[in-house]
């Protein structure tokens, strides 16, 4: 039950990239690169380089290390972290650190007297327990529904929502295999006072055009309408009846998007009513496959909606109110 925030990429299209290429040639370049770099600069400690944040014995920080190899190198880490507590805190090593470093002699738990050691141990237990519970909850949150989540789903939701919600079914279990185009047509009052209606205007195609040739597509084009429509579909039943608050919100949302888009073009009069529909067309099967699919797009048509001030951007609403007065 998505109670909340990022019921983002609901369903398979996931909104976010599912991975794609990642490719063999890369593999060759690796052994060449990494180890060489390793040898080049970091000889002093490369043997114990642990791979992950766990710079093992020689805290990489030690300025001595970097100093020894590359000459004009380290302006970026000029500080070379002054903190260089090799295995154990080194006496006399004083390193006030950016976000807080002790300049104290004995560092770590070994430098504490018994009562303080107890306090440190308790902190360790508490912090460790919190982290374990958190990771457990996150795991249960992303895992498929199972025995534990059926019994303790509420506890999991309580922990995870709203800020730790996540969904990593990126293009999974199956990628979306259809293009969903959202289209709108409008009824407006023309200059001569007559009511006219437009043809279907493909808003998704406009998005697509904006995305094409762009290295940095905007969320406005890539996510707004696409996810709004998803939101509408998941919060309505087949007869376009909203289920609860979210259903009502989603209606108003797609309506506002459509109206804002219509206002960008000059129809020749104020929009009175709009109608939305989606045209879902399956992606053609790949050329090498012998699958056959229905080529005709499937339409889902929503009822006509009368536009009220609440559907308009603020200044437009104000204008309209004045005009009506």
């Amino acid at each position, binding site marked *: 039950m998505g109670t909340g925030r990022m019921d983002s990429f609901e369903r398979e299209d996931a909104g976010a990239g599912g*991975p794609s290429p990642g490719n063999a040639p890369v593999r060759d370049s690796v052994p060449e690169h990494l180890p060489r770099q390793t040898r080049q600069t970091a000889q002093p400690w490369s043997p114990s380089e642990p791979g992950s944040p766990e710079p093992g014995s020689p805290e990489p920080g030690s300025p001595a290390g970097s100093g020894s190899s590359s000459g004009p190198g380290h302006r970026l880490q000029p500080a070379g972290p002054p903190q260089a507590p090799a295995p154990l805190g080194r006496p006399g090593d004083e390193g006030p650190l950016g976000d807080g470093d002790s300049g104290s002699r004995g560092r770590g738990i070994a430098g504490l007297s018994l009562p303080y050691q107890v306090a440190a141990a308790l902190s360790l237990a508490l912090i460790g327990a919190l982290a374990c519970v958190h990771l457990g909850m996150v795991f249960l949150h992303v895992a498929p529904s199972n025995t534990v989540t059926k019994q303790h789903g509420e506890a999991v939701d309580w922990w995870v929502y709203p800020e730790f919600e996540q969904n990593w079914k990126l293009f999974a279990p199956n990628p979306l295999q259809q293009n969903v185009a959202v289209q709108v047509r409008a009824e407006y009052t023309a200059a001569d006072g007559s009511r006219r209606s437009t043809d279907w205007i493909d808003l998704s195609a406009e998005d697509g055009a904006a995305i094409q040739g762009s290295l940095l597509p905007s969320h406005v084009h890539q996510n707004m309408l696409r996810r709004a429509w998803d939101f509408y579909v998941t919060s309505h039943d087949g007869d376009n009846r909203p289920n609860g608050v979210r259903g009502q919100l989603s209606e108003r949302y797609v309506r506002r998007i459509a109206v804002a888009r219509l206002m960008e073009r000059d129809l020749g009069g104020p929009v009175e009513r709009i109608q939305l529909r989606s045209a879902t067309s399956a992606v053609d099967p790949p050329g090498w496959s012998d699958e056959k699919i229905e080529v005709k797009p499937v339409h889902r048509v929503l009822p006509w909606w009368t536009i009220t001030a609440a559907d308009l951007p603020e200044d437009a609403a104000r204008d309209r109110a004045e005009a009506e007065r």
Partner: protein
Amino acid sequence: MRRGNGFDRKVADALQRITAAALGPYQSAVVRIGFAGAWLCFLLRELPHRQELYGPDSPWAWDMARRLVAGNDAFTVLVWGDGVLWFECVYALSVASSLLLMLGWRTRAMSALFMVGVLSLQNRSIFMGDGGDNVIHLMALYLVFTRCAQVWSLDARRAARAARAEDGAASRDRTGPVLWCLLGFGLLVGTFLSLSHRPGLFVPLLLWVLWLAQGLWWAVSRYAARSQPHTLLDVIANLVHNTALVVIMAEVCVIYATAGWYKVQGSRWQDGTALYYPLKLDYFTPWPALSELLAASGTMVMLLTYGTVIVQVAFPFTLFNRRVKNVLLVVMMVEHAAIAVVLGLPFFSLAMIAADAVFLPTAFLVWLGAAAARGRARLRPRGRSREAPRQHEQHTAHRTLVG
């Protein structure tokens, strides 16, 4: 008996290691720079669209956001007011805090502000985001627990200078206390403002704890340096940092494991055509010719499809072998770079690469830092004259400090 002793010793050593230092200074720094940078780039890119995405008059209107947030307790300061000015301030604050976090200026404070900025904007319009926003959201929360400015930061540079200038330098620092007071005032005002909205407790509580802890740390460092309480606080901070780093790493594993294991179940991933479909989706084909090219060969699509699933499923397990892990890391980063262009998801990819970076080997990061510094020196030759003495200074400093 002896074995027992050996075990005790190992436990003691491990305890000492995780309490004496904030481990992975380079990894935490690169994660900080990566995520702050990704969010900064995103905000700058969306500058022309900011009103449409998060402004009071966005299609996802302010009152709609407020209604939704009231139901799910998400944290966003944007529901406190519907003024354009308020929105612009929050957006600007988010830009500034991500820039400063990237540079590592007053990092702990900036990481808190960064989190507030990210959460406020994203929770304001949850239906604008995608996977990239989701990763940034989570990492913004985790980053506040880390000591991520030990290297590659203005904080580290300042600390090194202060160390060289002997004592007394610390007492001259006015900015820290002033910033702390300002943020405390802001927090107080924010708390009162938010009372009427009955927000979720988690984030405000977290902010207050952070603020108090910073104050306590400052006071103890100043008046009782090298005392037992001081060491205890340092131990706790290290523990929190190290734990947060583990959580970040686990989160990355969760991402790949989830993405991989759910794919295994999909028929399209099984028959080796899955990758073909996103290449045909209008919303994910910024370069149709390129997509066409990739989709042209059935064998290539199948290899990439299988390769993707294998890499994602395998990744968490390769952490036990450094060499294999590094190979996979490169593969995944290249893959994300390709996704950035081919599917038009640059910020998602940037965020994922930043997340992957937590697993980069220290030696590589050190080399990268040195290379970046060399590149910078080459780009700005006139800076060299200034550079030289400082370099010298540094070396003497090493000698007094270490040698």
